[in-house]
């Protein structure tokens, strides 16, 4: 008789959080928040915000940063005429300046059944939630806005971006009630979300991407077509990558319920080869679309990974 097994593997260090905590404190403890308070999430491209901020905007605004000269035309404010140019050339030009706005970040979180897998104490979905909380905290601390989409085979939760900690708190409080227990249709949801975001923003997809990879890549391309800065955080358990199990099992698909008896020791080599091709497909296509693709293993502390990632992103900006 088959019985359910919870396989024990060395797992990431789980930071103690306050019991019965809600909201952000349910995902991050004080020490983690302290560490994350010193880093920022920078967009690699211009973004369109509705508030003044630290990020470049496609609009020309009132900042002190000179951008270009433009021939004076109907509708231009005469106060922007550059008189010095007029004196030299007897032609009317107006000066244009760079606009700076705030960042709007959308975190898209996968809650499909496969995200419930975890070889250790940490499930992929738990890790993904913590990662979303960490990134959201970093964004809000920088006075930027953060919104969130949670999807499975449909969009289960949608939160518009706001720049307040209270907003983040309420968002995460709602996330606490979300469980990974459904089938997935990542590509369809990505297209829907892309259609719903009208201004250029930073889109962060947190998922195990265990779906039709070609369709997912097309969904990501949709974001890039709309000039969004896209980050893909591919969350995977180490056992999923290596299949480092020491005995035979009857494997049960967590989304479809399909069963397969196999000895991992015998097929590990071919499994790793197939999985490597799977990862390589995402890496190559994301690189081609200038999507920031990152592989995130769940056997590491969330804040450590978040700090490492954000630091590198800041350096490469």
């Amino acid at each position, binding site marked *: 008789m*088959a*019985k*359910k*097994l919870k396989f024990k593997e060395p797992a990431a260090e789980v930071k103690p959080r306050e019991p019965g905590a809600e909201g952000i404190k349910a995902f991050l403890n004080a020490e983690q928040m302290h560490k994350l308070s010193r880093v920022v999430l920078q967009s690699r491209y211009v973004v369109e915000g509705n508030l003044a901020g630290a990020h470049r905007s496609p609009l020309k605004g009132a900042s002190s940063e000179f951008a270009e000269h433009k021939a004076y035309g109907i509708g231009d404010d005469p106060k922007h005429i550059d008189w010095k140019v007029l004196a030299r050339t007897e032609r009317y030009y107006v000066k244009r300046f760079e606009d700076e706005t705030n960042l709007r970040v959308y975190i898209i979180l996968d809650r499909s059944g*496969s*995200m*419930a*897998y975890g070889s250790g104490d940490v499930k*992929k979905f738990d890790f993904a939630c913590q990662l979303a909380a960490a990134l959201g905290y970093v964004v809000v601390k920088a006075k930027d806005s953060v919104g969130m989409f949670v999807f499975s085979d449909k969009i289960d939760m949608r939160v518009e971006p706001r720049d307040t900690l209270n907003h983040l708190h309420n968002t995460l409080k709602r996330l606490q009630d979300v469980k990974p227990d459904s089938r997935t249709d990542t590509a369809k949801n990505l297209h829907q979300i892309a259609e719903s975001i009208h201004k250029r923003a930073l889109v962060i997809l947190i998922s*195990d991407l*265990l779906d039709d990879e070609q369709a997912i890549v097309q969904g990501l391309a949709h974001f890039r077509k709309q000039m969004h800065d896209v980050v893909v*955080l*591919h969350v995977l358990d180490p056992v*999923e*990558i*290596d*299949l*480092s*199990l020491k*005995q*035979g*099992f*009857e*494997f*049960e*698909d*967590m989304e479809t319920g*399909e*069963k*397969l*008896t*196999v000895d991992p*020791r*015998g*097929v*590990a*080599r*071919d*499994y*790793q*080869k*197939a*999985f*490597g091709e*799977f*990862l*390589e497909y995402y*890496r*190559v296509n994301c*690189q081609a679309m200038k999507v920031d*693709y*990152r*592989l995130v*293993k769940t056997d590491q502390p969330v804040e450590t*990974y978040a700090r*490492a*990632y954000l*630091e*590198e*992103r800041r350096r490469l900006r």
Partner: protein
Amino acid sequence: MISFLNFSFVFAFAALSIPLILHFIQSSRTQRLPFSTLRFLKLAQRRSSRRLQMENFLLMLLRFLLLALLVLGFMMPIVRTKKFGNVLSRTARDVAIVIDHSYSMNYKLNQQVVWEQAVELATTVIEGLGDNDRYCVYLAGDQVTPVFGERMSGNKEEAAARLRSLPMPVGSSQLCPATVAGLDLMEQDSRRGERELHIITDYQLLPWGSFKQNGERADTADDVPARPAAAGESLWDPSKVSDSVTCFVTLLGTAEPENSATMDVELEPRLITAETPCQVTVKLSRTGPPLDSVVSIFLDGAEVGRQSVMLGIDGANMVQFALPPMSGGVHTLRVETPEDSLAEDNPFYFLIRVREKLPVLCVGDPDSLLYLKAALAAGVGGVSPINAQAVQPNALPGENLAAYSCIFLSNTINLPGQQITQLEGYVAAGGLLVIFPGSRALLSDYALWTTLPVESLSMIDLPVEQRKRLLTWDQPQHPVLWNLVEDGLAPSLVIKRQLKYEGLKEKAGSIVSTGSGEPFLVARPHGRGAVMLFAVAADRSWSDFPLSPFYLPMMHQLTQYAAGVGANKPYLWATDALSLTEYLPEATRESVLKDPESKPVSLRSSVGESGNVIHAEGLTKPGHYTLSVTGGGASNPALAINMPRVESDLTSLRPQDLPDILGISALHIAEGKDDLLKKLDDFRIGRSLGETLLWLALLVAIAEVAYSNFLLRKNSKLTDTLKMEASGRLKGN
């Protein structure tokens, strides 16, 4: 054919199901593991299926093989080499056993005599035969002796008693004749079945010499010593050995034997007279490593000499003993080498006959004997060792010729035929007859003598200018010339008349000749004695020979030679039969010959050409034999019997040389009883594969463990090969 010693273990073959049972148990107890996706597992399983099947098949094969080998090993399978004998019911076996019956088999090793081991082994082989099997046993001694007659016997009950009652070996042996006899008997009394030839011997190389095939006689010292083929001994021809014959050679004893033995003795001088010293040269042999040994000599039972000698590796050594002056008569002597593993050849027995004076008979008229008697009467201090008796020819029939060691005939050739026959009989019995011609005899008188060395002769008168002749020694080593050669003189004679010889008879030879090449002294052996004929007379009528400086010493040499020419050897080798008439002429039908243990020796009388001949039988005990001529009279030492020393050479055979010596392919060589019995079991019953299979199982187990570990260790981790940074960035390949 395969059979099993432990067939009940066949139920353990059920253990072959253990891997299958374990497989099914594991399958039924497979734990369920929720997993994110089966997509890659399916892909991997599809890709790995063929390889996995092969690996699993190999593993299962190894495990089945391991269990099968273990079970088979414990079942103790026996591979029978009897081909299809059982199937065809032709397992009747004929066995011929040849036992080396030479006295080298008396070698004692660890308080056990090799001969006893051989008898025990032969008994064991016979007792191990089946009901339908038959056997024959041959002793390979000086003669081939069938123990159970010239037939194949099936009665095993009498075998042990008969074999244990066999006499201890005393002689030499050649294995080939007995082997051929055994093979011939099996061939003659053939029936369908297996045949075994067993040769049981020691490690001695000697008895294998007879197996040398035609044209392969040994001609080097390192080779098998070859001896002339004995009567009835056939040359070995391995191609004539039937293919159904399997030969087992069992070597008993030690491959590195040690033995010291006295091989021979020589007396100096050969003629020993009373109260004169003499010398004995003892020749020794040694087999084995060098040994510092002590040799003792006993005269009439008392030790009279002892010397230490270093006996080299397989080399001969000599040691000399000076014997004290002895009184007249026969004295017993014994040479002893230290006790060793082969005790039979440690003592060496011989006799010395010491003469008071040499009795010589001179036949002729006083004038012709004048110089001869004067010469024989000369001696040191005026005492001659020769007791010369002169008689007229007509007084010859009244003389007991056997009492004289030498008879001189001077100008007395014209004797009656009966006396000539008497004199020729005397020569045949070992006497020396020296004939001087004379003018009284006619040439026709010589023709009556059949023992003369010459075919025909003539008498010639030499002219004055040819009378001076220089003598030459044709046989310088002849005992008659011993003392004369050393003088270095060039003797010359003035010869007025002489006999001229027309050809010499068979075995005749010239000892001295004149300068013109004409024989001066010729000799011819006859029987145990000899006849010598001078070309000139013993007086001065024909030559000045009696006045020459070598006349006297030559006469003395002749008498001394006469004493030895027919003298008995100081010792004899052990033999089953001996003509006493030849060696002890004084023996009669009433005589009693006793062996060293004072037991009478069987004497047998027969009538031969020269009258009654007395034979002694069973002279196989080494030691001194005594003879009482008159039966109840005093016994005197008469014979010294020794074991033949050819068997004292224990040079070892190399077992690996046996295939070349025998030339048989179906040859099994066993060193010792246990080895033979094991080989017999392997041959008759089969060879146990139990140990081999268990070793094989161990190897398979090692291979299984190694292969399993190889399959487990070959998996590396993808995370180790991915070029992944801490930030999660993947670098391309």
